[in-house]
């Protein structure tokens, strides 16, 4: 099936078996291997990308469902020469060990800051009608869909707080 997806700002047209997930389209067809395949069942978050600004698990979506959508992967957030503030914060805070989950963590964290800014509640939000404060508890709850086998969680929380300050 012909499918056109704008990936990191460039329109890409692919002819795909309908079974192709968005993750496989990115990795195997567009050679954007930053997004990782961990569990392939939406449980680990390593495949997290932004679709029209929202974070999703790319492994649990068919590429053909995204005809006309705008997808941002880790490759589209920053470059080695010009890192995204969240990428820099993960380096500064040493927020990874093996690095496999990191592209998903960073995409998820970038979206998280937008969701908090928009006032979307989480399970950790006490006052559902007020503003959302970026507490450690909120960050941990909102990052619960991204698993880190090396357990860099304290540093990931620190990196997200650092990036929030840098972006503010």
């Amino acid at each position: 099936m012909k499918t056109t997806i704008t990936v990191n700002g460039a329109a890409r047209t692919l002819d795909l078996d309908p079974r192709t997930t968005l993750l496989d389209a990115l990795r195997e067809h567009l050679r954007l291997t930053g997004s990782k395949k961990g569990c392939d069942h939406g449980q680990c978050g390593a495949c997290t990308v932004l679709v029209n600004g929202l974070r999703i698990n790319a492994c649990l979506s068919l590429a053909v469902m995204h005809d006309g959508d705008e997808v941002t992967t880790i490759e589209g957030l920053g470059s080695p020469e010009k890192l995204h503030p969240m990428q820099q914060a993960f380096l500064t805070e040493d927020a990874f060990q093996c690095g496999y989950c990191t592209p998903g963590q960073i995409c998820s964290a970038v979206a998280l800051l937008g969701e908090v800014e928009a006032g979307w509640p989480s399970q950790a939000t006490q006052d559902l009608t007020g503003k959302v404060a970026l507490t450690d508890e909120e960050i941990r709850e909102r990052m619960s869909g991204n698993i880190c086998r090396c357990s860099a969680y304290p540093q990931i929380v620190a990196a997200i707080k650092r990036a929030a300050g840098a972006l503010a």
Partner: protein
Amino acid sequence: MRPFTYERARDPQAAVKAAAETPGARFLAGGTNLLDLMKLEIERPQHLIDVGRLPLGQVEETPEGGLRIGSMASNTALAADARVRSRYPVLTQAIVAGGSPQLRNKATTGGNLLQRTRCAYFYDTSKPCNKREPGSGCGALEGLNRNAAILGASHACIATHPSDMAVALVALDARVETLAPDGDAREFPLMELHRLPGETPEVETHLIRGELITAVVLPPPPEGGQVYRKVRDRASYAAGLASVAVAGGRVALGMVAHKPWRAAEAEAALAGGASPEAAMDAELASASETGRNGFKITLTARLGAAAIAEAKGTR
């Protein structure tokens, strides 16, 4: 994943017509549950009708003072809706208790209602499961049954419905609107959508072939407090062991039965002046344990009593 053909529905009428006429057709919305099950070849549709972009994603005020929630509204959008947060907080609390942000961004209101059980035997294709393979038996009866149903189960199936959102919607007395392939629109109480397993656990709802959920309608919020409480093995992003939604005088239980469970006995007891503890005891008088899930009866009793008391503001 088995091969299938794919189409994007033009409008709801075309979607239901195609679903009724095409062999092995299934609706696809967010896909977070269906695609997962297709990878495991538990779900094997021959044709997918993508309804995710149908214009059914709005949340609108009703003339009665309630809300009409389009079936394609995402879990995230619904939980974040200012009217839901202020008037139906139990619904926001329930939604954000389920899944992860990534899943909630994709999952829809209609799809959440129709998600399948997380029973280990439904997922393990090497084991018997009457829901996945009718007539093969129930592996959970003598197996991993710690999180099995305590209410309304049968010897054919002790699986539970995993939704958080649906528990709050049942407590809020929500109604469902659907479109059938013959063009008929109908609406009925959400608590009548799902079936108990009986002898046919593979049939989970009263929807007919090709019928599409188009909206969920909330009546005006009830008088009194609203609370959603959930207990699970991890603090976040884990399936529930038991949950309870309280909205005024109404109580619903989650993860304890094949459907979101309206606690009618507890409600009647509360209306008669019973304590929260006595009300939950009345509800759970018909509960039964299978193997290792007996603790869920105690857990649900205490969780329900605490939530009822919290909603009343007495604790």
